């Protein structure tokens, strides 16, 4: 891939100056202020080539206060969560963890992508990311595998409600 440097003028009047602190006060986002833009996150990132705004650029935009832009980037959602950036970042920014914070914010303000939302709904209904089908249960039995212990979905659901999960899935 060739490197093409694009320049554009950014309108700063829409910046949210406190945005970086909003991110930094969370558990997963506490490292964001330490970023010095070395770009090793983007260099290590398996989806870097597939996104318009690469991980280090997302972090830079957070620091600049470009809240609306940041929360609209596809980068957040296609992050393959491989944690290569977390391991390699010399400033311990934990970019993949920061992405979780940004996804949480985007989930609240703009919603979660449909494919992921479907997984969320299954968790709500089954207590697992996939429903254990009749077919699968029979297959396990035929292989001589023990019966899967039933999940107490009612109790689990209360936990999901208590932590605000249910609203983001709707």
């Amino acid at each position, binding site marked *: 891939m060739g490197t093409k440097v694009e320049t554009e003028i950014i309108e700063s009047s829409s910046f949210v100056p406190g945005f970086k602190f909003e991110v930094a006060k969370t558990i*997963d986002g506490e490292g964001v202020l330490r970023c010095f833009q070395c770009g090793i996150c983007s260099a290590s990132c*398996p989806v870097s080539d597939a996104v318009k705004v690469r991980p280090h650029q997302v972090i830079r935009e957070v620091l600049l206060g470009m809240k609306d832009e940041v929360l609209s980037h596809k980068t957040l959602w296609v992050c*393959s969560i491989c944690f290569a950036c977390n391991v390699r970042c010399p400033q311990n920014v934990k970019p993949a963890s920061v992405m979780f914070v940004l*996804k949480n914010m985007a989930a609240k303000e703009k919603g*979660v*992508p449909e494919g*992921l939302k479907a997984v969320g709904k299954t968790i709500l209904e089954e207590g697992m990311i996939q429903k254990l089908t009749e077919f699968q249960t029979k297959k396990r039995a035929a292989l001589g595998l023990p019966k899967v212990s039933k999940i107490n979905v009612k109790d689990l659901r209360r936990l999901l409600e208590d*932590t605000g999960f249910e609203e983001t899935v709707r």
Partner: protein
Amino acid sequence: MKYSYYMGCQVTTRLPNYDLATRKVAEKLGIELVDLKDASCCGFFTRPFTPTTWLAMSTRVLAIAEKTKLDLVTVCTGCYSTLTEAQALLKEKPRLKEKINKLLSKEGLKYGGRLKVKHLVQALYFDIDLEKVKSSVKESLGGLKVASHYGCHLIRTPDYEKYDDAEAPNILDELVEVTGAESIYWPLKLWCCGGMTLPVDENLSFKLGGIKIKDAKNAGAHCIVTVCPTCQLQFDFHQSIIARRTDQKYNLPVLTYPQLLGLAMGINEKKLGLQLNRIPVNSVTRTIKSTSE
């Protein structure tokens, strides 16, 4: 050795072969696996939605496991990563732990913090001991070239650093080599399988999967060996569709580690669920037979 056994969602539903081989291999090594009751999701997939749901769900599993008074073993790297990260966080932040425990008290659960969580490969390598695993091998897999794939959530979890090097891991390679097989060098060995992007961008996910499979194949691998359900599904279940979309023919078998070890222990293929692997494993068993003759 006795452990509580936590499969995780994907092994429970889609990979009975991984489960089966794990149990057979454990039995041979004298490991007793006690199935965890009410084993809900570790919560990893809720992490993009809300800040604390994953932690509450993980702690729920930890609290249930703690009741068994046994260390927990999982065959899923995602569960390993999520559960150990939750443990570290709860240890570091007592007030947060109190808050989560308060939520769990509604169903009579409480997490104390004494539980040890391990991935199967760590249990095999350290608790059972590599030498004992080696002595369980009855039929050497000499001549078989294996592309060992660790899975990101195993090696890049902070907890893993207590055991191995995230950037140059060794545990799985050694576990593969005690079977007599060769764990080959492949340039993209530590690269992500792309499985996690599947719910959001299928094309991208399959593209990443294809890059890995192609790299393993080019390096001369007879098969890929995984220790993670997401990676197994990506390389095995999705391989034919990945191949079709990129106009390639890979036919590269993908085995979970217990299936490989089971073959070396001389366990019957059917008892390892190898007939359920999507890409036929005949070429692997043929390679093993032809070199042992």
